């Protein structure tokens, strides 16, 4: 969870992009890396297979916000989506302050979306955390594809909590920053609330 350092005036947070394999988590980070100036981001680290499937995680440190003179650093991580990398997903979830669940909008992969969402809830339980306890938003990716399911159906399937959901075509950059900014705001609001309530 967040680390607040009054000495360096920094707040460090961890945001995790979760979702099934090939849903576009890495594309989100690649677009952010491409678009942000080097003064606002560090280098992106990708531990991928030769076929560019995420093996371990992608990592991108960014610095986009200030609270009362404190720099808020967001460490963006993706998890490997493939089913058999669950141990790695658990590791990456450790200490997460906020989550984006990236769903693949294609009709054919609805089962994978559901399985991944369920897997997220199970893995959070290992850290005694529930989705309701964390800032979490949804991104419905691949909206440009002709076989994309309607948003109301994705809402029905994945958004019982009524959290903010964003349409995106991450490969083209559409919706990527809308998603990121919404999560950053959500996380900062949550942190501010915790600070003010004495939980931090």
């Amino acid at each position: 969870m967040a680390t607040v350092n009054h000495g360096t005036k920094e707040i460090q947070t961890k945001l995790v992009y979760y979702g099934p394999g090939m849903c576009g988590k890495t594309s989100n980070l690649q677009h952010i890396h491409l678009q942000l100036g080097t003064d606002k981001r560090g280098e992106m680290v990708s531990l991928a297979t030769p076929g560019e499937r995420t093996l371990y995680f992608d990592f991108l440190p960014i610095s986009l916000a200030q609270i009362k003179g404190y720099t808020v650093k967001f460490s963006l991580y993706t998890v490997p989506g493939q089913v058999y990398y669950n141990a790695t997903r658990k590791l990456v979830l450790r200490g997460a302050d906020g989550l984006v669940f990236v769903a693949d909008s294609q009709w054919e992969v609805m089962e994978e979306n559901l399985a991944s969402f369920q897997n997220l809830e199970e893995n959070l339980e290992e850290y005694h955390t529930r989705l309701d306890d964390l800032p979490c938003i949804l991104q419905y990716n691949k909206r440009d594809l002709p076989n994309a399911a309607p948003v109301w159906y994705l809402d029905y399937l994945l958004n019982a909590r009524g959290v903010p959901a964003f349409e995106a075509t991450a490969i083209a950059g559409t919706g990527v920053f809308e998603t990121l900014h919404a999560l950053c705001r959500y996380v900062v609001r949550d942190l501010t609330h915790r600070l003010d309530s004495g939980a931090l």
Partner: protein
Amino acid sequence: MEQHHLVFSEEDAALLDLCLNRFVEDTGVSVALLMGRDGHLLSKQGVEKSLPIDSLCALAVGAFASSEALARLVGEDSFNSIYHQGVRCNVYIALAGEAYLLLALFNYRASAPLVRLQAKVCAEAALTVINRAEMHAPPSRTEETFTLQ
């Protein structure tokens, strides 16, 4: 495994820096980093500006988690440290308590056994400060607003 936020006062942050600074001076390592198992940096000493600290932390945490899984496969609970030997640079990562890691970068000028020995001393001293920080009263109120840059 419970998770919690960690807040360091200026005094605690300075004490952590002091622990790491002593480690750097006593061993001759070029860089010392203290981080949480979630990849957040707590303190750094001897760092050059060009060093990608955030990436180092993320990868060190990942590497250590892998070694931990490896340990369980061979019947150990955990390996308490990992060591990568290079031609020009060596990396030593040691567990500090259960939730923190101490990373040292060093070359041939520093002695690996001394680094291992002093890392343990440094980790124990740092843990005392961290435990103190965990018991601290909450800091003053913050403003509700923030700016996205």
